[in-house]
Protein backbone atom coordinates (compact mmCIF):
# COMPACT_ATOMS: atom_id res chain seq x y z
CA UNK A 1 0.00 0.00 0.00
CA UNK A 2 1.34 3.41 -1.00
CA UNK A 3 1.95 6.26 1.36
CA UNK A 4 -0.09 9.42 0.88
CA UNK A 5 1.94 12.56 1.54
CA UNK A 6 0.42 16.04 1.58
CA UNK A 7 2.54 19.08 0.77
CA UNK A 8 0.79 21.87 2.62
CA UNK A 9 1.38 25.27 4.22
CA UNK A 10 -1.73 27.37 4.66
CA UNK A 11 0.01 30.38 3.19
CA UNK A 12 0.43 30.75 -0.55
CA UNK A 13 3.67 31.29 -2.44
CA UNK A 14 5.92 29.48 0.01
CA UNK A 15 6.96 26.73 -2.39
CA UNK A 16 4.43 23.90 -2.13
CA UNK A 17 4.32 23.14 -5.84
CA UNK A 18 8.09 23.51 -6.24
CA UNK A 19 8.55 21.13 -3.30
CA UNK A 20 5.93 18.67 -4.56
CA UNK A 21 7.66 18.51 -7.93
CA UNK A 22 11.06 18.13 -6.28
CA UNK A 23 10.01 15.38 -3.87
CA UNK A 24 8.06 13.44 -6.49
CA UNK A 25 11.05 13.56 -8.84
CA UNK A 26 13.42 12.71 -5.99
CA UNK A 27 11.45 9.62 -4.97
CA UNK A 28 11.21 8.47 -8.58
CA UNK A 29 14.95 8.97 -9.16
CA UNK A 30 15.56 6.61 -6.25
CA UNK A 31 13.38 4.01 -7.91
CA UNK A 32 10.11 4.53 -6.03
CA UNK A 33 7.05 4.61 -8.24
CA UNK A 34 5.51 8.00 -7.49
CA UNK A 35 2.54 10.08 -8.57
CA UNK A 36 2.07 13.76 -7.80
CA UNK A 37 -1.45 15.20 -7.80
CA UNK A 38 -2.46 18.83 -8.20
CA UNK A 39 -5.28 19.67 -5.75
CA UNK A 40 -5.44 23.33 -6.71
CA UNK A 41 -8.60 23.04 -8.79
CA UNK A 42 -9.07 26.05 -11.06
CA UNK A 43 -5.48 27.23 -10.61
CA UNK A 44 -3.55 24.45 -12.25
CA UNK A 45 0.22 24.93 -12.05
CA UNK A 46 1.92 21.69 -11.18
CA UNK A 47 1.85 20.77 -14.89
CA UNK A 48 3.95 23.86 -15.67
CA UNK A 49 6.48 23.17 -12.92
CA UNK A 50 6.76 19.54 -14.08
CA UNK A 51 7.01 20.63 -17.71
CA UNK A 52 4.08 18.57 -18.97
CA UNK A 53 1.53 21.33 -19.60
CA UNK A 54 1.16 20.47 -23.26
CA UNK A 55 0.35 16.87 -22.58
CA UNK A 56 -2.73 17.34 -20.39
CA UNK A 57 -5.82 15.70 -21.87
CA UNK A 58 -7.89 14.48 -18.94
CA UNK A 59 -7.56 15.56 -15.33
CA UNK A 60 -8.22 14.64 -11.70
CA UNK A 61 -11.76 16.04 -11.80
CA UNK A 62 -12.60 14.02 -14.94
CA UNK A 63 -11.66 10.89 -12.99
CA UNK A 64 -13.68 11.88 -9.93
CA UNK A 65 -16.68 12.48 -12.19
CA UNK A 66 -16.14 9.21 -14.02
CA UNK A 67 -15.56 10.98 -17.33
CA UNK A 68 -12.22 9.28 -17.88
CA UNK A 69 -10.20 6.33 -16.60
CA UNK A 70 -7.31 6.94 -14.20
CA UNK A 71 -4.75 5.71 -16.71
CA UNK A 72 -5.98 8.12 -19.33
CA UNK A 73 -5.33 11.07 -17.04
CA UNK A 74 -1.98 10.03 -15.58
CA UNK A 75 0.90 11.67 -17.44
CA UNK A 76 4.14 9.70 -17.50
CA UNK A 77 7.19 11.92 -17.08
CA UNK A 78 9.46 11.98 -20.10
CA UNK A 79 12.75 12.45 -18.27
CA UNK A 80 12.37 10.35 -15.14
CA UNK A 81 11.27 6.72 -14.86
CA UNK A 82 8.61 5.80 -12.27
CA UNK A 83 7.21 9.34 -12.21
CA UNK A 84 3.61 10.25 -13.00
CA UNK A 85 1.66 13.49 -12.82
CA UNK A 86 -2.07 13.84 -12.25
CA UNK A 87 -3.02 17.38 -13.26
CA UNK A 88 -6.13 19.14 -12.07
CA UNK A 89 -8.89 20.94 -13.91
CA UNK A 90 -8.32 24.52 -14.98
CA UNK A 91 -12.00 25.26 -15.53
CA UNK A 92 -13.88 23.88 -12.53
CA UNK A 93 -13.78 24.90 -8.90
CA UNK A 94 -12.98 23.24 -5.59
CA UNK A 95 -16.53 21.95 -5.13
CA UNK A 96 -15.69 19.35 -7.74
CA UNK A 97 -13.58 17.66 -5.05
CA UNK A 98 -15.90 15.35 -3.15
CA UNK A 99 -14.64 13.23 -0.29
CA UNK A 100 -16.03 10.06 -1.87
CA UNK A 101 -14.58 10.94 -5.27
CA UNK A 102 -11.12 11.71 -3.91
CA UNK A 103 -11.17 8.58 -1.75
CA UNK A 104 -11.91 6.38 -4.74
CA UNK A 105 -8.97 7.82 -6.69
CA UNK A 106 -6.66 7.54 -3.65
CA UNK A 107 -7.54 3.89 -3.09
CA UNK A 108 -6.83 3.11 -6.72
CA UNK A 109 -3.51 4.98 -6.66
CA UNK A 110 -2.43 3.34 -3.39
CA UNK A 111 -2.50 -0.07 -5.05
CA UNK A 112 -0.11 0.99 -7.77
CA UNK A 113 2.20 3.66 -6.38
CA UNK A 114 4.63 3.72 -3.47
CA UNK A 115 4.26 7.44 -2.93
CA UNK A 116 1.28 9.65 -3.68
CA UNK A 117 2.10 13.32 -3.22
CA UNK A 118 -0.84 15.69 -2.84
CA UNK A 119 0.09 19.24 -3.79
CA UNK A 120 -2.29 21.31 -1.67
CA UNK A 121 -3.70 24.68 -2.65
CA UNK A 122 -3.13 27.61 -0.28
CA UNK A 123 -5.75 28.42 2.33
CA UNK A 124 -7.75 26.23 4.68
CA UNK A 125 -10.81 25.80 2.47
CA UNK A 126 -12.17 22.73 0.78
CA UNK A 127 -9.26 22.19 -1.63
CA UNK A 128 -6.67 22.28 1.15
CA UNK A 129 -8.83 20.11 3.40
CA UNK A 130 -9.30 17.49 0.69
CA UNK A 131 -5.55 17.46 0.00
CA UNK A 132 -4.71 16.73 3.62
CA UNK A 133 -7.70 14.54 4.51
CA UNK A 134 -6.30 11.19 3.35
CA UNK A 135 -2.66 11.90 4.25
CA UNK A 136 -0.45 9.46 6.11
CA UNK A 137 2.38 11.99 6.26
CA UNK A 138 2.47 15.76 5.90
CA UNK A 139 5.29 17.98 4.76
CA UNK A 140 4.66 21.48 6.11
CA UNK A 141 6.31 23.99 3.79
CA UNK A 142 7.22 27.12 5.72
CA UNK A 143 9.16 30.30 5.00
CA UNK A 144 11.14 31.89 7.84
CA UNK A 145 8.63 34.69 8.09
CA UNK A 146 5.87 35.49 10.60
CA UNK A 147 2.76 34.99 8.49
CA UNK A 148 4.00 31.71 7.05
CA UNK A 149 4.93 30.30 10.47
CA UNK A 150 1.56 31.23 11.92
CA UNK A 151 -0.33 29.72 8.99
CA UNK A 152 1.73 26.54 9.27
CA UNK A 153 0.66 26.23 12.88
CA UNK A 154 -2.93 26.60 11.78
CA UNK A 155 -2.51 23.80 9.25
CA UNK A 156 -0.94 21.59 11.92
CA UNK A 157 -4.11 22.14 13.94
CA UNK A 158 -6.22 21.05 10.97
CA UNK A 159 -4.12 17.91 10.48
CA UNK A 160 -4.60 17.03 14.13
CA UNK A 161 -8.35 17.60 14.06
CA UNK A 162 -9.77 17.24 10.59
CA UNK A 163 -7.74 14.62 8.74
CA UNK A 164 -9.10 11.15 8.15
CA UNK A 165 -6.63 9.72 10.66
CA UNK A 166 -7.83 12.18 13.29
CA UNK A 167 -11.50 11.51 12.60
CA UNK A 168 -11.09 7.75 12.75
CA UNK A 169 -8.82 7.91 15.79
CA UNK A 170 -5.95 6.20 13.94
CA UNK A 171 -2.24 6.94 14.39
CA UNK A 172 -1.83 10.66 13.76
CA UNK A 173 -0.46 12.05 10.50
CA UNK A 174 3.37 12.10 10.59
CA UNK A 175 4.54 15.70 10.36
CA UNK A 176 7.71 17.06 8.77
CA UNK A 177 8.91 20.64 8.52
CA UNK A 178 10.43 21.85 5.27
CA UNK A 179 11.86 25.33 5.68
CA UNK A 180 12.13 26.97 2.27
CA UNK A 181 13.57 30.22 0.90
CA UNK A 182 16.05 30.30 3.75
CA UNK A 183 18.68 33.01 3.46
CA UNK A 184 21.59 32.20 5.80
CA UNK A 185 23.13 35.62 5.20
CA UNK A 186 20.01 37.46 6.35
CA UNK A 187 19.65 35.06 9.26
CA UNK A 188 23.20 35.85 10.32
CA UNK A 189 22.41 39.56 10.27
CA UNK A 190 19.33 38.99 12.43
CA UNK A 191 16.95 39.97 9.62
CA UNK A 192 15.31 36.58 9.31
CA UNK A 193 14.03 33.96 11.74
CA UNK A 194 16.60 31.21 12.06
CA UNK A 195 15.87 27.52 11.73
CA UNK A 196 16.01 26.92 15.50
CA UNK A 197 13.48 29.69 16.15
CA UNK A 198 11.01 28.17 13.70
CA UNK A 199 11.58 24.69 15.10
CA UNK A 200 11.03 25.93 18.64
CA UNK A 201 7.75 27.60 17.66
CA UNK A 202 6.28 24.86 15.48
CA UNK A 203 7.75 21.95 17.43
CA UNK A 204 7.79 19.38 14.62
CA UNK A 205 10.81 17.47 13.24
CA UNK A 206 12.92 19.17 10.58
CA UNK A 207 13.02 17.43 7.21
CA UNK A 208 15.11 19.98 5.39
CA UNK A 209 16.14 23.57 4.87
CA UNK A 210 16.03 24.78 1.27
CA UNK A 211 18.17 27.87 0.71
CA UNK A 212 16.83 30.81 -1.26
CA UNK A 213 18.15 30.29 -4.78
CA UNK A 214 17.86 31.99 -8.11
CA UNK A 215 17.96 28.59 -9.74
CA UNK A 216 14.43 27.79 -8.53
CA UNK A 217 12.92 30.44 -10.80
CA UNK A 218 15.13 29.37 -13.65
CA UNK A 219 14.02 25.76 -13.25
CA UNK A 220 10.35 26.77 -13.21
CA UNK A 221 10.92 28.87 -16.36
CA UNK A 222 11.93 25.77 -18.25
CA UNK A 223 9.57 23.32 -16.53
CA UNK A 224 12.22 21.24 -14.85
CA UNK A 225 11.89 20.23 -11.20
CA UNK A 226 14.71 21.96 -9.28
CA UNK A 227 15.98 18.67 -7.85
CA UNK A 228 17.24 17.74 -11.34
CA UNK A 229 19.64 20.69 -11.13
CA UNK A 230 22.22 18.99 -8.97
CA UNK A 231 24.59 21.93 -9.27
CA UNK A 232 22.25 24.28 -7.41
CA UNK A 233 22.15 24.54 -3.62
CA UNK A 234 18.37 24.26 -3.64
CA UNK A 235 18.48 21.13 -5.80
CA UNK A 236 21.04 19.50 -3.51
CA UNK A 237 19.05 20.51 -0.41
CA UNK A 238 15.95 18.85 -1.87
CA UNK A 239 17.92 15.71 -2.69
CA UNK A 240 19.11 15.59 0.93
CA UNK A 241 15.57 16.10 2.22
CA UNK A 242 14.28 13.25 0.06
CA UNK A 243 17.02 11.02 1.45
CA UNK A 244 16.08 11.96 5.01
CA UNK A 245 12.43 11.25 4.29
CA UNK A 246 13.47 7.77 3.18
CA UNK A 247 15.26 7.27 6.48
CA UNK A 248 18.83 8.18 5.61
CA UNK A 249 20.93 10.11 8.08
CA UNK A 250 22.05 13.18 6.15
CA UNK A 251 23.56 16.25 7.75
CA UNK A 252 21.85 19.59 7.11
CA UNK A 253 23.68 21.85 4.70
CA UNK A 254 23.19 25.45 3.57
CA UNK A 255 22.07 26.62 7.03
CA UNK A 256 25.20 28.68 7.66
CA UNK A 257 26.59 31.28 5.25
CA UNK A 258 29.18 29.68 3.06
CA UNK A 259 32.74 30.78 3.63
CA UNK A 260 33.54 33.30 0.97
CA UNK A 261 36.97 33.86 -0.44
CA UNK A 262 38.83 37.16 -0.55
CA UNK A 263 37.64 37.83 -4.08
CA UNK A 264 33.99 37.27 -3.28
CA UNK A 265 34.16 39.39 -0.16
CA UNK A 266 35.73 42.28 -2.06
CA UNK A 267 33.31 42.20 -4.93
CA UNK A 268 30.03 41.54 -3.21
CA UNK A 269 27.80 38.62 -2.50
CA UNK A 270 28.09 35.82 -4.93
Amino acid at each position, binding site marked *: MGQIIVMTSGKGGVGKTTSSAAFATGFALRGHKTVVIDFDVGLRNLDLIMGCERRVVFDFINIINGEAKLHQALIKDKKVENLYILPTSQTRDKDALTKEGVEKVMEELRKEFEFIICDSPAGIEKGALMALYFADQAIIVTNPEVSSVRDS*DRILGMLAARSRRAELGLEPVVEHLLLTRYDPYRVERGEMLNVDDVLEILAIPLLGVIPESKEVLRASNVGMPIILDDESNAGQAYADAVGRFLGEDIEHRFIKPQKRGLFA*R*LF*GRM
Partner: protein
Amino acid sequence: MRIFDFFRPSKPKETVTSAHHAKERLQIVMAHERAGRDAPDFLPLLQKELLEVIAKYVDVDQNRVEVKLDRNNDFSTLEVNIELPSSKKGEPLRIKASTSREPASKDKPKEKEAVA
Protein backbone atom coordinates in the same frame (compact mmCIF):
# COMPACT_ATOMS: atom_id res chain seq x y z
CA MET B 1 32.24 50.97 0.74
CA ARG B 2 32.80 47.26 0.45
CA ILE B 3 36.52 47.67 0.62
CA PHE B 4 36.16 49.27 4.05
CA ASP B 5 33.56 46.78 5.22
CA PHE B 6 36.16 44.18 4.54
CA PHE B 7 38.35 45.35 7.42
CA ARG B 8 35.48 45.71 9.86
CA PRO B 9 34.24 42.74 11.81
CA SER B 10 30.69 42.11 10.70
CA LYS B 11 28.50 42.63 13.76
CA PRO B 12 24.78 43.14 13.74
CA LYS B 13 24.13 46.84 14.40
CA GLU B 14 20.99 46.43 16.47
CA THR B 15 21.32 44.57 19.72
CA VAL B 16 17.72 43.31 19.47
CA THR B 17 17.27 42.19 15.89
CA SER B 18 14.04 42.23 13.92
CA ALA B 19 14.17 38.42 13.78
CA HIS B 20 14.09 38.45 17.58
CA HIS B 21 10.94 40.58 17.49
CA ALA B 22 9.41 38.20 14.98
CA LYS B 23 10.02 35.23 17.24
CA GLU B 24 8.61 36.95 20.30
CA ARG B 25 5.48 38.16 18.54
CA LEU B 26 4.86 34.73 17.06
CA GLN B 27 5.24 33.01 20.41
CA ILE B 28 2.70 35.30 22.03
CA VAL B 29 0.07 35.25 19.29
CA MET B 30 0.37 31.52 18.74
CA ALA B 31 0.03 30.70 22.43
CA HIS B 32 -3.34 32.46 22.30
CA GLU B 33 -4.41 30.80 19.09
CA ARG B 34 -3.47 27.33 20.28
CA ALA B 35 -5.50 27.89 23.43
CA GLY B 36 -8.42 29.03 21.30
CA ARG B 37 -8.17 25.96 19.09
CA ASP B 38 -9.55 23.66 21.75
CA ALA B 39 -11.74 26.34 23.24
CA PRO B 40 -15.21 25.18 24.09
CA ASP B 41 -17.55 25.75 21.18
CA PHE B 42 -20.54 25.38 23.46
CA LEU B 43 -19.98 28.68 25.23
CA PRO B 44 -21.86 30.94 22.80
CA LEU B 45 -24.68 28.42 22.67
CA LEU B 46 -24.78 28.08 26.44
CA GLN B 47 -24.96 31.83 26.74
CA LYS B 48 -27.76 32.04 24.20
CA GLU B 49 -29.79 29.32 25.87
CA LEU B 50 -29.30 30.81 29.31
CA LEU B 51 -30.67 34.06 28.02
CA GLU B 52 -33.61 32.28 26.42
CA VAL B 53 -34.50 30.59 29.68
CA ILE B 54 -34.35 33.83 31.58
CA ALA B 55 -36.29 35.62 28.86
CA LYS B 56 -39.06 33.10 29.36
CA TYR B 57 -39.70 34.48 32.83
CA VAL B 58 -38.54 38.04 32.70
CA ASP B 59 -38.28 40.64 30.03
CA VAL B 60 -34.58 40.92 29.28
CA ASP B 61 -33.13 43.84 27.42
CA GLN B 62 -30.39 42.40 25.16
CA ASN B 63 -28.40 45.58 25.54
CA ARG B 64 -28.27 45.07 29.29
CA VAL B 65 -26.37 41.81 28.99
CA GLU B 66 -22.70 41.75 29.82
CA VAL B 67 -20.57 38.75 28.90
CA LYS B 68 -17.05 38.31 30.17
CA LEU B 69 -14.66 35.44 29.52
CA ASP B 70 -11.48 35.13 31.54
CA ARG B 71 -8.84 32.66 30.46
CA ASN B 72 -6.33 31.49 33.03
CA ASN B 73 -3.85 28.67 32.87
CA ASP B 74 -5.87 26.22 34.90
CA PHE B 75 -9.44 27.35 34.46
CA SER B 76 -11.65 29.76 32.58
CA THR B 77 -14.53 31.77 33.94
CA LEU B 78 -17.53 32.78 31.96
CA GLU B 79 -19.47 35.53 33.60
CA VAL B 80 -22.86 36.55 32.31
CA ASN B 81 -24.39 39.59 33.93
CA ILE B 82 -27.98 40.23 33.05
CA GLU B 83 -29.68 43.31 34.29
CA LEU B 84 -33.36 42.76 34.78
CA PRO B 85 -36.00 45.41 34.69
CA SER B 86 -37.23 46.30 38.15
CA SER B 87 -40.08 44.12 39.31
CA LYS B 88 -40.58 46.06 42.46
CA LYS B 89 -40.83 49.77 42.46
CA GLY B 90 -37.52 51.57 42.44
CA GLU B 91 -34.53 49.19 42.61
CA PRO B 92 -33.59 47.11 39.57
CA LEU B 93 -33.47 43.34 39.81
CA ARG B 94 -30.20 41.67 38.77
CA ILE B 95 -29.55 38.11 37.92
CA LYS B 96 -26.01 36.89 37.82
CA ALA B 97 -25.26 33.63 36.14
CA SER B 98 -21.71 32.41 36.01
CA THR B 99 -20.12 29.16 34.95
CA SER B 100 -16.66 27.98 35.81
CA ARG B 101 -14.92 25.22 34.02
CA GLU B 102 -11.85 23.06 34.51
CA PRO B 103 -9.49 22.76 31.54
CA ALA B 104 -9.61 20.02 28.89
CA SER B 105 -12.44 17.55 28.72
CA LYS B 106 -13.64 17.45 32.28
CA ASP B 107 -15.94 20.42 31.87
CA LYS B 108 -18.76 20.38 34.29
CA PRO B 109 -20.23 23.82 34.10
CA LYS B 110 -21.57 24.80 37.48
CA GLU B 111 -24.27 27.34 37.30
CA LYS B 112 -24.91 29.81 40.01
CA GLU B 113 -27.87 32.04 40.08
CA ALA B 114 -28.30 34.79 42.54
CA VAL B 115 -30.94 37.37 42.70
CA ALA B 116 -29.70 40.56 44.17
